[in-house]
């Protein structure tokens, strides 16, 4: 009985590994499993620096942009920008209601990182910690971009 269960488990693991390998082979890319801690940000405003784009000062604008389908990223504590393409079981990444709800939050996630042509794309497998909005920037920067 024990031996049968062990063999079934081994077979399952083999199938999982084969599926992952097949997916990577199809795309020609290999993912790297990483942990990231940082702030959920709007990719456009943060990268282009068209306005101050962090914390409470930019929260409302970040919600507008996420609802408008602009890619959402995590600005890691390492200073790198990770574009989120998947959030746990949800493979949608345009105006995803779950992402809308964690805009500006400080999170710790783990996931699969794909790097291509200067962009870091992250498929988040788990949000391990969510501290909510903790970056208080509005006293210094007001409400971006219109002040209301």
């Amino acid at each position, binding site marked *: 009985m024990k031996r049968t269960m062990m063999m079934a488990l081994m077979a399952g693991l083999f199938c999982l590994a084969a599926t992952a390998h097949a997916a990577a082979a*199809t795309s020609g890319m290999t993912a790297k499993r990483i942990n990231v801690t940082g702030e959920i940000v709007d990719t456009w405003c*943060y990268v282009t*620096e068209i306005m101050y784009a962090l914390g409470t000062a930019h929260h409302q604008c970040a919600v507008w942009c996420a609802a408008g*389908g602009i890619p959402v990223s995590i600005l890691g504590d390492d200073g790198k920008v990770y574009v989120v393409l998947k959030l746990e079981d949800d493979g949608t*990444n345009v105006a995803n209601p779950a992402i809308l709800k964690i805009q500006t939050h400080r999170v710790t996630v783990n996931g699969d990182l794909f790097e*291509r042509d200067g962009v870091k794309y992250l498929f988040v497998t788990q949000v391990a910690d969510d501290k909510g909005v903790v970056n208080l920037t509005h006293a210094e920067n007001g409400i971006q971009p219109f002040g209301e």
Partner: protein
Amino acid sequence: MKTIAIIFALAVMAFAPAAFAAEEWGIDGEKKARFEAKVVDIACELSGNCPANCGGGKRQLGLLRDDGRLLLVAKNFDIFAGGTVDLLGFCGQRIVADGLLIKTAKMPLFALQFSRLAPDGKWRRANKFTTEWSSSNGGKEGSQWFRHDARIKNEIAANGVFGIPGLKPSKE
């Protein structure tokens, strides 16, 4: 001030008569660019997980250039909107993309302003987001869509403009 100028310029250009050539937006690192590329689902391109029709509007789309470079389309010609709605109809097809290639130390991005089916389809301004938003919101005017969108209003009502329930702007 620069922010307001860029947003104002974008809003004016979005409703100006079409010239079908990229406009500068005054962003550091921007460069006008017109090129042919294939419209792809970015997550599919990277992971091999490929739903039908590039995810039907629920996935970020990109431009795969002939040299193999993949460009993330982060913006269209509408205020506070991305490029998926404008590109979805071209899923898997080659288009001529016209817009701004933005290169910064953080990462490269593309802002789509105009597109047409390659090689000589009809030019189209990349402002389909507000058009579709308007038609799915009872014909409301789209230029201020972000102030009238139900998803946004619900989120701000629940957590406030700062994202922290109960924290409100000071009245000065």
